């Protein structure tokens, strides 16, 4: 894919995504009904859930592209894995900040060791490790491979981590207030707003990932071009 095509694609997705986010905010602030028990703060839900979805998506892409990179050694797969991981880190941060803000009001506590919370927090740290290894690797190529290994191993072990934390509460009684599963099923206006949020965030995510991918592409081209030219005296 040529660089211009990549830029165009990213631009279009980005514009659509930003438009989607604007619509989402209008829906969230003026249209969707207020949830009965949690009140106005429940609206954070429409930002929180889409960012969580995107984080998981990013993690999956990073792991798959990482595994494919180890197998095929195509630079482009590494760019994709890295770009997705960066997106995952950012959207993970959004999820991990919007969550406690909502929880502080809805549950009365910003954090609880509920399985999903624990899992996503740990996943964010795996992403962090992914970048620390890339950044500090003595050899650039080894850094790429090691980062891919972290992505793959993370994807393998994270389900086990999830199972563990899922069963962990059986040791400790779970506070009843914190149970968000037994809330009322989603009303249609809430469902629509959520869907808009999911779509908008996904578009923005892919826009960022493709832009980032284009940047790596550009760096690669630059490295190739400067290598061919004789150094200026």
């Amino acid at each position, binding site marked *: 894919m040529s660089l211009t095509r990549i830029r165009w694609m990213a631009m279009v997705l980005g514009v659509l995504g930003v438009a989607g986010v604007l619509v989402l905010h209008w829906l969230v602030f003026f249209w969707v009904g207020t949830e009965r028990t949690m009140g106005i703060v429940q609206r954070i839900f429409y930002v929180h859930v889409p960012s969580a979805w995107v984080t998981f998506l990013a993690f999956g892409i990073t792991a798959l592209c990482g595994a494919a990179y*180890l197998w095929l050694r195509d630079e482009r797969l590494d760019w994709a894995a890295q770009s997705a991981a960066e997106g995952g880190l950012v959207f993970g941060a959004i999820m991990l900040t919007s969550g406690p803000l909502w929880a502080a009001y809805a549950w009365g506590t910003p954090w609880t060791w509920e399985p999903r919370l*624990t899992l996503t927090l*740990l*996943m964010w*740290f*795996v992403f*962090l*490790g992914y970048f*620390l*290894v890339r950044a*500090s*690797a*003595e*050899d650039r190529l*080894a*850094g790429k*491979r*090691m980062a*891919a*290994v*972290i992505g*793959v*191993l*993370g994807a*393998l*072990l994270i389900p*086990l*981590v999830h*199972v*563990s*934390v899922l*069963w*962990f509460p059986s*040791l400790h009684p779970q506070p009843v207030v914190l149970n968000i599963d037994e809330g009322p099923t989603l009303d249609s206006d809430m469902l629509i707003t959520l869907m808009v949020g999911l779509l908008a965030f996904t578009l923005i995510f892919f826009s960022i990932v493709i832009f980032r991918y284009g940047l790596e592409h550009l760096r690669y081209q630059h490295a190739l071009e400067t290598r061919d030219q004789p150094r200026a005296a």
Partner: protein
Amino acid sequence: MTVYLRQVAAIVRKDLLLELRTRERLAAMGGLTVLVAILFHFAIDQGLVRMQQLAAGLLWMTILFGGMLGMGRTFEMEREHGAIQGLLASPIPLDGIYLAKVISNFVLVALIEVIALAAYWLFFGFDYGGDPLLLAGVLAVATLGVVAVTTLFSAISAQTTMGQTLLPILIFPLLVPVVIFGVTATGRIFASRPAQEVEGSLYLLAAFAVLSLAAGAILFRYVVEE
């Protein structure tokens, strides 16, 4: 197969022999283990909590920190003298090298577990109750999981400028299952609960160990390849 096992055994023997002669890692790990126990004594108000209630948790934290200190240096000696090149160029399959490193690390961590158990018994009079065989089994299976993950990641952190500083950030998120089920199982054994209550945790620890060992053996080649 026998050749493979002999190759693995050769590396294990070399590692343990070097450790026996220098006692570098063991001294640091064992020292840290005892010191952590001493710090816990001052860090925890024993008028408020009974140390026995925290026994399993303290033990596992000590094992993780002590073990990490030594395991972070798994490939240090080979790197310092460039011996890693020779090792990688030798006809030993890369997963064989990984397995050998896992085994020698396992022996080291098992030793510091004995030191930790002794230190906590000495300082806090922990009652280890329960079936000692079951305790040994749980510790062994859980340790295998820890060692399998940490050995792979020590090969990664050894190739970064951050070195060992990076290791805990990489492994702790992935070692959460070992902490959960290791602490659950050892806690129940210390409380002399029936073996059935430990079984479930033991199986999950075994699953973690098998999965991370297999993943490590497969992924190790990508970490060290030149």
